[in-house]
């Protein structure tokens, strides 16, 4: 087990290097000229300005040279400077990553809780109204686009009824808590500021729900199918013959046996959530990686694009690793050397 984890960890740097290389190469393949992002249109005809800009941003060097320099800098934590914000990309990302992670993790918690609960209920009460409702809920979540859902819910809950707050991470009039984890809810708790905590949580609910709904649908379908299969197995009969109650039969015996595929789908839905976060953040003015990535892409901000791609890739690698480890822990039959 430990050896397996160590081996996986050992492979990480190589995978990261692979991501870096890919991210780097992909941006050079784009047709766009990054100079348009740096130099104003009027100065585009001025050769001295162009030359100076090229030298300043290293665009006068060959691709391999730039690559080597980039990787060298990356090792020291330097991801270059954003063309647009003119700040270090690493800093920009560090500032925005927690907002995205908070959103994505909240979405995952909401999505898997709803998904598992609905899946279990749908399986246990198959072909009843509960089952049909769960099917509809899942279908809706996976077929309605995030931006439509986001706007609709925002309109209903925030504009129309005023139950939930509008876009943003928190009420601008409230004091920001000291940044410790970068997760606003957790930082507020650590600072002991309950008002900010509740406000942040209130702001988080809707975007997290919107983002989580689609994965809730996927998870509930998978859990339902697996539960149906498991509930028909003989050890369920054994549990009932032992005198176990239905609650225990379903949760302790059946659900535990669907844990492995469920964990897997939750883990891999993380990648989906990361991409889904881009749209959600745009709709909810969420100051995270998604909105950063959108503006970087629009402005051909190459350092920022590469940086976001690398960080996204690394987050994906890490969640995959966690998923695989959880898979091993949940499944006694898997033995790893």
């Amino acid at each position, binding site marked *: 087990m430990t050896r397996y984890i160590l081996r996986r960890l050992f492979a990480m740097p190589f995978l990261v290097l692979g991501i870096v290389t890919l991210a780097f190469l992909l941006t050079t393949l784009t047709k766009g000229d990054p100079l348009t992002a740096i130099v104003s249109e009027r100065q585009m005809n001025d050769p001295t300005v162009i030359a100076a800009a090229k030298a300043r941003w290293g665009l006068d060097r060959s691709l391999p040279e730039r690559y080597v320099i980039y990787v060298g800098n990356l090792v020291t934590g330097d991801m270059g400077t954003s063309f647009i914000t003119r700040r270090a990309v690493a800093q920009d990302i560090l500032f925005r990553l927690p907002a995205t992670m908070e959103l994505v993790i909240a979405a995952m918690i909401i999505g898997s809780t709803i998904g598992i609960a609905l899946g279990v209920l749908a399986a246990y009460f198959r072909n009843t109204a509960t089952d049909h409702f769960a099917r509809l809920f899942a279908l809706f979540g996976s077929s309605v686009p995030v931006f439509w859902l986001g706007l609709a819910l925002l309109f209903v809950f925030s504009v129309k009824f005023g139950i939930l707050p509008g876009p943003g991470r928190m009420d601008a009039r409230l004091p920001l808590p000291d940044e410790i984890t970068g997760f606003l809810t957790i930082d507020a708790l650590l600072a002991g500021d309950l008002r900010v905590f509740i406000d942040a949580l209130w702001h988080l609910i809707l975007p997290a729900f919107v983002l989580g709904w689609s994965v809730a649908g996927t998870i509930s379908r998978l859990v339902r199918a697996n539960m149906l299969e498991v509930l028909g*197995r*003989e*050890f369920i*009969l*054994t*549990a*009932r*013959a*032992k*005198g*176990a*109650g*239905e609650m225990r039969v379903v949760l302790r*015996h059946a659900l*535990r*046996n669907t*844990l492995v595929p469920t964990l897997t789908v939750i883990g891999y839905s993380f990648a989906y959530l990361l991409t889904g976060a881009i749209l959600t953040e745009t709709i909810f003015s969420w100051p995270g990686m998604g909105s950063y990535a959108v503006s970087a892409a629009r402005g051909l901000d190459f350092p920022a694009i590469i940086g976001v791609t690398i960080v996204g890739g690394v987050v994906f690698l890490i969640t995959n690793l966690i998923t695989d480890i959880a898979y091993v822990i*949940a*499944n*006694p*039959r898997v033995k790893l050397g």
Partner: protein
Amino acid sequence: MNHTETGVPLFEVKDLRVSFGRSETQLEAVRGISLTVNNGEVLGIVGESGSGKSIGMLAALGLQPETATVSGSVRFKGKELVGLSRRELRKLRGSRVAMIFQDPLSSLNPVMTIGAQITEALQLHNDQLSNKAALERAEELLKLVAIPQPDRRLSQYPHEFSGGMRQRVMIAMAVANDPDLLIADEPTTALDVTVQAQIMEVLADLQERLNLGLILITHDLGVLAGHADRVAVVYAGQIVEQASIDDLFAAPSHPYTRGLIASIPDMTADRERLFSIEGMPPALGRLPVGCAFHPRCPMCQEVCRTTAPLFRGNQKHEAACHFAELAEGGR
């Protein structure tokens, strides 16, 4: 505690019927089974695949699938189980009445340790039992069914056990709360022949030691020889013959029983004499008119095609065949 003395049998099933589906299209899988098991008695139930043995016994304990409808009477120590509340049934299951199943490979929970599964059986019926005491008792139980190194085995998962060992675990779990009645549904069918004998040994040994009432379901009459006191032969959801095991082998009265006896694989003979009854048992809902067995019966007469036979004989040996001549001393 001997209920036979007070006249109340341990387990008494009367006219048990189980059907599937809704009213008009209902298919009857169990068509009126009556049987009795006394304290410490071993009753064998034998019949071909699909004859309703499992469904009947599951229904007796309220374990039938949701789609099944059950009627008739099942009394355990005089208490009616059909229509009993779920709670009351749960209290009986696993404590006074236990059941083990055909396929030991799938009847244990693959993600729980053996120890956890046995202690669960114990603690479900005794909330005062501490984890430690439960584990100790679980170890004792594994010893009881002759599993070597029981302490180490407790922390292992089902996939680390062979089929025979798993069935031993199932047996240990079933007798954990010292039940009065054990229903073993084809406990050896899925196992190798040599292992089959061992498991039967374990069962027989426990039955005697714990004075269990035992219902032994099988489709192989040979398994029952030397183990059962009485045998009920089931065909197409009905009992066609019921007798003490000796009487049954000495004087089988129903042609189906005779067919079953003839098809017991004969280990002692050098030639593989594998007789099998011709034809197939009727599918659900396609019961022939008259005697259900008549299309396959070698001695079928006109009356068999038109009239369902009633039981003949006495309480000790009865058979549902127009040509059973028990009262006259059997044939």
